[in-house]
């Protein structure tokens, strides 16, 4: 059907000359070209679709798991230090925190399984090539120790074995806090994998800051000296490692800036810095310590959720998969010619 009319003034309503060039039809100017050619952004793709499949993990469960694991592991170290240096109130808080956090993290992990009833299948094998397998065994060792440490503390019975469990949990705790970095980095997700060198330091720093935060919330100023120092240590470690990771990798730098991850990570930076500064300067005042502690815990949670969402964003955009790999191919070709 023709849409044009021939009037005395000429042809009206004629469509512009059709130029149905293959590959010219793009719904949005920023949409990927249909023929996969690479005008914008310098990479080609299959209709802009991601190369990787959608990550089937819920943020609440897995980012929550990362946060709680870091909190538990670091809390156990502070608990042992507090017990051995005679700070009973701090020790009590940290032991209870470790048990609560590790229970929560296992609950989050089980909740995220597609077949929760088959959780025990994790312990069928022990595979060093699978950080999740290693982590399951680590939790199987650490969980009961953290539990015994808290139970003996709260009931006041079996003090001697309780101290042994506290020390044992403190020795395994850092591994629990650090292993979650290989857990997410041992994937093809660009913003996680490319950051594998710094990620464990981000996670242990963030875990230390969170545990310090709980310590500040739950111990009197007379005993919170270690928590104040741990706040500064954790925040500094996390901030330095994050900065280095962003400097080194475009996929990390980009995805940490934009979207939901960007908002969360900016909030994390502000909260962590405020909390650490508050703890260092005003930590001897009860209310300032509590506010700083709350900021540190919230900052650590924001860091984990931010890093989680950055990974999701980097997997959803084929750019972060294709561009570095294409670059590698080009470099190899250039080296081959030279």
């Amino acid at each position, binding site marked *: 059907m023709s849409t044009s009319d021939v009037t005395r003034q000429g042809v009206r309503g004629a469509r512009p000359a059709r130029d149905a060039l293959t590959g010219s039809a793009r719904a949005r100017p920023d949409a990927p070209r249909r023929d996969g050619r690479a005008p914008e952004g310098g990479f080609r793709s299959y209709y802009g679709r991601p190369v990787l499949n959608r990550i089937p993990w819920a943020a609440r469960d897995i980012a929550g798991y990362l946060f709680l694991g870091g909190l538990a592991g670091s809390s156990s170290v502070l608990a042992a230090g507090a017990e051995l240096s005679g700070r009973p109130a701090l020790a009590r808080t940290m032991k209870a925190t470790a048990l609560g956090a590790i229970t929560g993290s296992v609950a989050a992990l089980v909740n995220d399984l597609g077949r929760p009833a088959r959780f025990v299948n994790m312990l069928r094998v022990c595979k060093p090539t*699978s950080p999740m397998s290693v982590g399951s065994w680590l939790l199987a060792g650490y969980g009961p120790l953290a539990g015994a440490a808290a139970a003996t503390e709260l009931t006041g019975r079996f003090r001697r074995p309780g101290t042994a469990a506290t020390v044992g949990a403190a020795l395994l705790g850092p591994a629990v806090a650090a292993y979650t970095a290989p857990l997410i980095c041992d994937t093809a997700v660009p913003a996680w994998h490319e950051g594998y060198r710094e990620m464990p330091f981000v996670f242990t720093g963030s875990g230390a800051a969170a545990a310090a935060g709980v310590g500040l919330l739950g111990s009197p100023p007379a005993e919170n000296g270690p928590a104040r120092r741990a706040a500064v240590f954790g925040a500094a470690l996390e901030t330095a490692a994050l900065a280095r990771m962003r400097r080194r990798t475009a996929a990390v730098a980009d995805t940490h800036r934009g979207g939901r991850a960007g908002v969360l990570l900016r909030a994390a930076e502000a909260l962590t810095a405020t909390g650490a500064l508050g703890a260092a300067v005003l930590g001897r005042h009860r209310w300032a310590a509590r506010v700083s502690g709350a900021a540190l815990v919230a900052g650590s949670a924001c860091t984990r959720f931010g890093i989680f969402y950055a990974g999701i964003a980097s997997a959803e955009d084929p750019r972060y998969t294709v561009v570095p790999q294409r670059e590698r191919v080009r470099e190899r070709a250039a080296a081959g010619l030279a």
Partner: protein
Amino acid sequence: MTANDPAPGGPADPAGAAGHPDHPPRVGFFTDTSVCIGCKACEVACKEWNAIPEDGLNFAATSYDNSGGLGADTWRHVAFIEQRRPLGRQHTGVARDGAGPAGEAAAVDLGMPSFERPGDGAGADGRGEFRWLMSSDVCKHCTEAACLDVCPTGALFRTEYGTVVVQEDICNGCGYCVPACPYGVIDKREDDGRVWKCTMCYDRLGAGQQPACAQACPTDSIQFGELDELRERAARRVTDLQLAGVDSARLYGEDPGDGVGGAGAFFLLLDDPEVYGLPPDPVVTTRDLPAMWRHAGTAAAVLLAGLAATFLGRRR
């Protein structure tokens, strides 16, 4: 280490390395996309044989593609790409076996109701400056398979044929294999919680049959066989095509020296892999795992030392 862990660096014999002493030769797919006509017989045959649920009756609205990509319910996926490019004498008239570049007469009979090839009558100039690329994607059955490496339950295992298969009664749905796969193949089925992917028709192999997709492919674009033999055949085919003027022909995934130790399912492509939705240079993530453990170990030690240090000194 369990028996399923491949040796680092990509074993030449993955089935043997996984603990199958007397195993049959390694099998694989060679998908020659230059003869693919996009009929999707492979997608249908795969769904039928493996009783895969419907994956949404969608139309991608970008091309004739309606399954979009590989997933829990799509184990073969046919990609369609329309390009404004000269054909480059890209036709199917090159005989596959030995006839060489001059194989004008030995055209592959596609069984189409036509007496001449499209564009023949118009001459080279009249053929138009555009081409269709079609390619049937599938799990690569990597020599170094990230999905298998990271699986914490041992649900994913290496078969005696050198392929990678999920045991559905063991998978607990942790989903770790999904982001581990550098090709976006394995995927979690929402309503069932477990992960699914191509098994290279493990059940058919046991009965001496070839996989359903290869059986159904009308143009032999999907070729099934012993991997060594397929690699030789593919090398001949790509040389033939290049001599015939199809400069863009290249193999993808055939090299045992690549980032996954060579794919058990490899391809002949007519453009860059990323145009088909394939990663240009995938590397199995577990190659970096030893370094990851080292960094994590250092970080754990730093954490322990740093927190211990907060208890040092005069009590303030």
